[in-house]
């Protein structure tokens, strides 16, 4: 099933939750709706699910053969952040619910229901838990049941609303990987909402970044991370250092450092800002080959070393991340003056403010 969202607008009272949303999700894709709180991502998901209706615009569904298709309740697999399992039913009954409530003529036989539920529980690795009740399960287990329940009805697509938001970090990571593998196996069109950029980058085929109800960028994880279209996207997907400078024919000049900026080849002499990831900030001890900065603070996180520096010319704080080897070879101490080079940057003209 493919999903096409056309010109969707939604307002709640005076709050504009979504404006001018246009989006195509192809059959079998796993798409992440990423954005900060209030960006409209959950509203969009709920509109796709039919739990809300758009003020303007429409959502059109096509099956694998490009034929427009109607989607009703019972066709949508929805997984909530807080599981929404039925507390008074055991695991088996929860998963079987969608099948048991079907109208007589489409309801599977009792034996068939049992078989399907068992297969699904096996898929989510909870086949021994049939008779248990939700209150006896951990958060991660409950979410797996919620997933099984949604899949039981053989939905046309799967929608997940911050599915791992209520779980601890480790469980979250495990389930993330697990969801990706599940999707590789089943290939059901899936859309999930998250505010965790790492999750979106790791799990999805394609990311839709939302901000204040509008789409900022759509692309594969590689695209949005390495070719962010706006400072907001860049900033949202990771830590960032800002270097102000000027663009001269395809090169951004910051102090006595310059950075290649091929997308601005035609531009001359405009002020610009270079967005640089901490691990793209190189530290050298050779004068005149970098921007002078004084080391404020050094902190080893075990994996890497974080170095906080203060630029001597502007006083701006810059963060650099080094791997253990580089750090050891440089022998850095707080208070020392060193020089910064930029390995890679994304340059934006016309000082966008975030």
């Amino acid at each position, binding site marked *: 099933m493919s999903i096409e969202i056309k010109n969707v607008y939604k307002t709640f009272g005076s709050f504009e939750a979504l404006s001018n949303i246009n989006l195509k999700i192809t059959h079998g894709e796993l798409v992440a709706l990423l954005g900060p709180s209030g960006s409209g991502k959950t509203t969009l998901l709920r509109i796709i*699910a*039919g*739990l809300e*209706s758009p003020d303007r615009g429409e*959502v059109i569904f096509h099956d694998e053969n490009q034929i427009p298709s109607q*989607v*009703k*309740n019972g066709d949508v697999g929805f997984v909530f952040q807080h599981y929404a399992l039925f507390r008074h039913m055991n695991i088996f009954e929860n998963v079987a619910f969608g099948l048991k409530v079907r109208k007589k003529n489409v309801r599977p036989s009792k034996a068939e229901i049992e078989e399907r539920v068992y297969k699904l529980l096996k898929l989510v690795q909870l086949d021994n838990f049939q008779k248990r009740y939700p209150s006896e399960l951990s958060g991660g287990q409950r979410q797996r049941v919620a997933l099984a329940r949604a899949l039981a009805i053989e939905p046309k697509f799967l929608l997940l609303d911050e599915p791992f938001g209520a779980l601890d970090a480790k469980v979250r990571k495990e389930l993330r990987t697990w969801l990706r593998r599940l999707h590789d196996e089943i290939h059901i069109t899936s859309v999930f909402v998250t505010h965790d950029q790492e999750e979106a980058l790791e799990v999805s085929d394609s990311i839709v970044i939302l901000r204040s109800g509008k789409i900022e960028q759509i692309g594969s994880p590689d695209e949005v991370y390495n070719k962010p279209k706006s400072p907001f996207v860049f900033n949202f997907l990771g830590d960032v250092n800002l270097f102000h400078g000027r663009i001269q024919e395809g090169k951004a000049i910051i102090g006595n450092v310059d950075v290649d900026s091929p997308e601005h080849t035609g531009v001359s002499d405009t002020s610009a800002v270079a967005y640089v990831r901490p691990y793209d900030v190189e530290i050298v001890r050779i004068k005149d080959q970098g921007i002078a900065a004084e080391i404020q603070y050094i902190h080893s996180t075990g994996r890497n070393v974080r170095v906080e520096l203060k630029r001597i010319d502007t006083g701006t704080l810059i963060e650099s991340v080094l791997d253990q080897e580089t750090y050891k070879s440089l022998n850095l101490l707080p208070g020392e003056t060193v020089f910064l080079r930029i390995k890679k940057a994304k340059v934006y003209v016309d000082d966008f403010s975030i």
Partner: protein
Amino acid sequence: MNRYSPNFTKWIFIGLVYFFAFIILILPILIVFQEAFAKGISGYLESLQEPDTISAFLLTLKVAAIAVPINTLFGFVAAFTITRFQFPGKNFILTIIDSPFAVSPVIAGLIFLLIFGRQGWMGSFMEQWDIKVVFNTPGLIIATMFITLPFVARELIPLMQSQGKEEEEAGILLGASFFQTLKKIIIPNVKWGLLYGIILCNARAMGEFGAVSVLSGHIRGQTNTLPLQIEVLYNEYNSVQAFTAASLLVFLSLLTLVVKIILEKNIHRK
């Protein structure tokens, strides 16, 4: 996508609610006033000035004025002890506090009669000291105290439970004495719940009928509280006077409800 539209059933239900609300809740209020004013405003005012009615009213006030503050104090102390200290038998005490609710008021009256009446256990004791409890005011007060015991406590216990003692602990660590903590931290926090409990307690104290009926002696002008006076007047087919007295209590009742609305607004603001 389809979304089910419950509009039809919704309006049927709302209609039913209007219907029942009118019959069950509103009609009684209306009829009290209709009967009270059956002889016009002058009839109403005249009934208000009946000496027996006035003394019944005063007696009711007197009983409430004693029972309510005592039970408030008790409720506050009990709630504080229960929610702030650990001790065995908490559940038992909670059940005991709730027990006046479960017991029929008539049975409550009966018990006190058995204890304090002339043929009761403490009866001879009472006679010695010439203390007349039953069929006299003290009996009414005691019965009312029993019946209304739970109200303040029941309001405060869940409230203080959910508030937690962190604020008080913070106050004490900062150097406040026990009484200062009481005055400046605890009481302001519970003041709305406390007020509501007092109002309920008072409404019940003034309106109590069953228990006082057993213990009262029904002597007009002396041991008749307002509800008992209403009964007397009604049984004498003196309906205007009965309903006039009743209207006073209806005012009290409505006042209680109004205070509740105001309190809820304030609780939400917190």
